[in-house]
């Protein structure tokens, strides 16, 4: 078995200790990110770039009283580390006091999570190229043009404080996405997977799906309007990724969020369809994340929405101290409980609606309604009388995600999706396909 990528636990510990010993500050925190990133990129049916690099970055946070500053450096030689420690101390001495600063944490009860898969960590450039070649060959046979990207990461991270905390975590991640286009530029299809474990990436299925989508999607005109929509899991994931940012209690308490109510927040209120349950769990299989935050707080399984009810909001340590509640870190992944409806059943149950494959350029419009805009891409179809009747133009949506979660009609099984627009390994998102009523497709996009 190949040696795991990134510094091992002993090295993380010893570098952290060396830095803590060099520190002359009242308090000090050391975070280390160490790892490797490899990638293979295809465009115009050729590999256009491939490569990889290892790097280790150390973040040193120095504290005098409540003056705080940090320095990040990738230079690990003794004199460079000393210089970095002194620089963070110099900065901290100059920094104005931060009254919201709370003392560094001591040892915490952190339940370890194993998120490192050798299948990913030992993935060779040749294996990446083979996956790329499958798609290129398949696209060529179909007279299509492939553009793909495989992003692979493997490494370790740690946090240590002068108060005796040390925690470390190793992880891997891989995202593989493929876009196939017709030579005349009038058709496009996409497919992709994301996982911690390379063996879950289905290169052949991705090639099949992207080629099939491209072949089937040559648009015809459809007017904008309010439609029942069926969102494939990737489309749902790209929207739910935005929900992740909305569970902040301080924003709610301060009147800046959907979860605000005059004089407080809406904890405990039933706000969405009762089939909507959202949780995060750093140990969730193949969506694992570090079980601690950058400052060393334990991250545990947490239910944010429970059967449509707002169950929790995240609180920084400072906001927790102001409100007399325990601190609760932000979610590090997001899992939406699925249902048993298949995509075929959703289509069959729809008299008139639109099937959406994925989205692009999603941007916030209004945090009070969790409203976003964005565009459909790579596969948009009209459904009539229980079947896909024809491929149609892309749309821009202007849609409140809160309303969307109130209008849920059917849910499929949950799966991990490649939810980031740039196809890098991102925050793990596990979501179902979803049928939703009254979704605002507000204007036509001519893009293909």
């Amino acid at each position: 078995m190949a040696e795991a990528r990134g510094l091992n636990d002993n090295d993380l510990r010893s570098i952290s200790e060396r830095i803590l010993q060099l520190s002359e500050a009242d308090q000090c925190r050391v975070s280390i990110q160490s790892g490797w990133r490899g990638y293979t990129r295809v465009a115009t049916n050729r590999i256009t770039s491939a490569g990889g690099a290892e790097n280790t970055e150390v973040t040193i946070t120095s504290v005098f009283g409540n003056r705080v500053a940090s320095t990040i450096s990738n230079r690990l030689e003794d004199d460079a580390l000393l210089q970095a420690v002194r620089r963070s101390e110099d900065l901290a001495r100059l920094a104005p006091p931060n009254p919201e600063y709370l003392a560094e944490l001591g040892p915490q009860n952190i339940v370890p999570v194993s998120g490192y898969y050798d299948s990913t960590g030992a993935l060779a450039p040749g294996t990446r190229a083979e996956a790329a070649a499958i798609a290129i060959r398949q696209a060529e046979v179909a007279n299509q043009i492939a553009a793909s990207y495989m992003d692979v990461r493997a490494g370790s991270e740690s946090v240590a404080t002068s108060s005796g905390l040390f925690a470390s975590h190793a992880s891997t991640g891989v995202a593989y996405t493929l876009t196939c286009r017709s030579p005349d530029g009038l058709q496009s299809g996409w497919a992709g997977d994301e996982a911690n474990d390379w063996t879950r990436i289905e290169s052949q299925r991705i090639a099949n799906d992207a080629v099939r989508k491209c072949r089937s999607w040559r648009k015809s005109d459809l007017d904008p309007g309010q439609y029942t929509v069926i969102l494939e899991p990737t489309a749902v994931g790209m929207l739910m990724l935005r929900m992740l940012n909305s569970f902040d209690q301080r924003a709610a308490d301060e009147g800046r969020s959907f979860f605000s109510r005059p004089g407080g927040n809406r904890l405990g209120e039933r706000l969405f369809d009762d089939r909507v349950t959202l949780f995060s769990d750093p140990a969730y299989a193949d969506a694992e994340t570090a079980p601690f935050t950058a400052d060393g707080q334990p991250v545990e399984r947490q239910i944010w929405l429970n059967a449509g009810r707002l169950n929790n909001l995240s609180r920084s340590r400072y906001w927790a101290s102001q409100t007399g509640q325990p601190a609760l870190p932000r979610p590090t992944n997001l899992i939406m409980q699925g249902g048993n409806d298949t995509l075929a059943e959703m289509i069959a149950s729809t008299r008139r609606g639109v099937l959406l494959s994925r989205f692009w350029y999603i941007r916030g419009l209004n945090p009070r309604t969790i409203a976003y805009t964005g565009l459909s891409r790579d596969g948009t179809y009209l459904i009539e009388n229980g079947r896909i009747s024809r491929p149609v133009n892309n749309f821009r949506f202007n849609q409140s995600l809160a309303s969307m979660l109130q209008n849920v009609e059917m849910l499929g099984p949950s799966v991990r999706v490649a939810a980031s627009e740039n196809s890098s390994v991102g925050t793990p998102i596990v979501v179902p396909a979803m049928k939703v009523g009254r979704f605002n497709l507000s204007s036509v996009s001519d893009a293909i």
Partner: protein
Amino acid sequence: MRIPPIPNNHRASVTDCGTPIHLASEVSRRDFMRMLGAGTAGGALLGAAAPVLPQNFGDLEKALLLNAIDVAMASGADYADARIIHTRFEAVGTREYTITQVQNTDSLGINVRALVGGSWGFSATPNLNADAVAVTAREAVAIARANDQVAPGSLSLAEVDVYPDASWTTPHSIDPFTVSVDDKAALLLRANEEALRVRNVSYVTSSILSVKEQRLVATSDGSFVDQTLLRINPSMTITAISADGREFQTRGSVVEPAGRGFEYVLGLDLVGNAPIWADEAAQKQFAARVDPGVWDLVLHPSNLWLTIHESIGHPTELDRALGFEANYAGTSFLHPPESVLGRTRLGPEFMQFNGNRNEFGGCATTGWDDEAVPADSWPIIADGVFVDYQTTREQAAMIAPYTGNTRSHGCSYGQNWQSMPFQRMPNVSLLPGEEDLSDDDVIAATDRGIYVEGRGSYSIDQQRYNMQFAGQVFWEIRNGRKTRMLKELAYVGRTPEFWNSLSVIGGDSSYFLGASFGDAKGQPIQVNAVSHGCPTSLFRRVQIINTA
């Protein structure tokens, strides 16, 4: 040594409703302390020395680069280039009366890019020693060779002059890294304090991000370029909440990033302007809802620059047009090159867009690019017609038959030592009109319209047709005058029709540069900093929607 010309387009900035604020071009450290006011930061201000950061590159780094090129060529590369890049970031962030972030980032390494046949290989290492660099150079060649075996090909690089001993530094009078973090924090906290004096203004965040890139580039053609690039990004976001807590509005994007020194930040007068921006946040709560439909639109440069970025900058990137970005950033409606170059009309006769890497204060301004091509300035849209793309050396050769241009426009950039350089956006600017119309003159040419300042929520499709752009502050124009404030609206359109509706543009006196540090492209994703200059401009009959 050759220093690219600095065009005389350093203009006054307009950051509030019609009151021009002159950018002080030379502000000394002493002026700075006077501007902050005695006693603001106590004695600490005078005594505070900025931490001294290590060094300049010297013979050692040069030898490493030349060795990297030699090893790559000896290993069978047809062409190679190598870079040592040292990037430093410093972020100082505040919230209301407190500091929230002081962070310094320091990253140094070397990379090698090698061409074998028609394929590139790239490798990078943080270890600046001869052995590690030789391994990295050989690996770059091995990757290039392996990629070429999957699909053998050839690739020609546009001709370039050789610059064996070139250097360039962003023009500046105060290196931001010589200004201490407490000076920066004091400036921000004073500005916050001024904003918080305004009724109903409850929250303010502000920050200054400083960047210094030291870049050495060597090519197997024999060029060697040593550059220091400075960029600075001040920002401030002000939130007003009504007394009953039911309405909240923010005013952000009040100032722009620039490829300049700290004197630029001082010239913005954050402290003096904070109450004006805060007042706008407070007024927004009581602003009227727009009557959706067709309106004339007057876009201030603080809004128009991002519209240019999205709808002119991106579709004129040649790699997008050719499908190289199809899996992420998308393609372009300006495709295929042979059918659109010199043929596609995108605007009226007076509409001129230049791509450039030499505009004073531009975030993409440099002396040479990552392939040691000197900074260029060229027409992208001439007399309203699309005439050229943004190119690197390999790309220039691809379209030379249609443009007649045999040389690269110098758009190669990699975000740091770990990142392979590729085509990135230069400054793309809308040139001011021949007649020197002011902001007020353009407003006066509008009977019923909406005046937009600042960038809001921006979204555009992957071929750059369907745009939906918002702003920070909206004013209704009636009979040539700004009347009441509007809120929560966006303009929507289709790029060719939108630009063809351009009917009046301002002159020199309304021209300035907006910018972003966050232009994203590529896989792995890389960010690029870029500016867009433009005058206040009037667009006829644009669709307006209510986003509330």
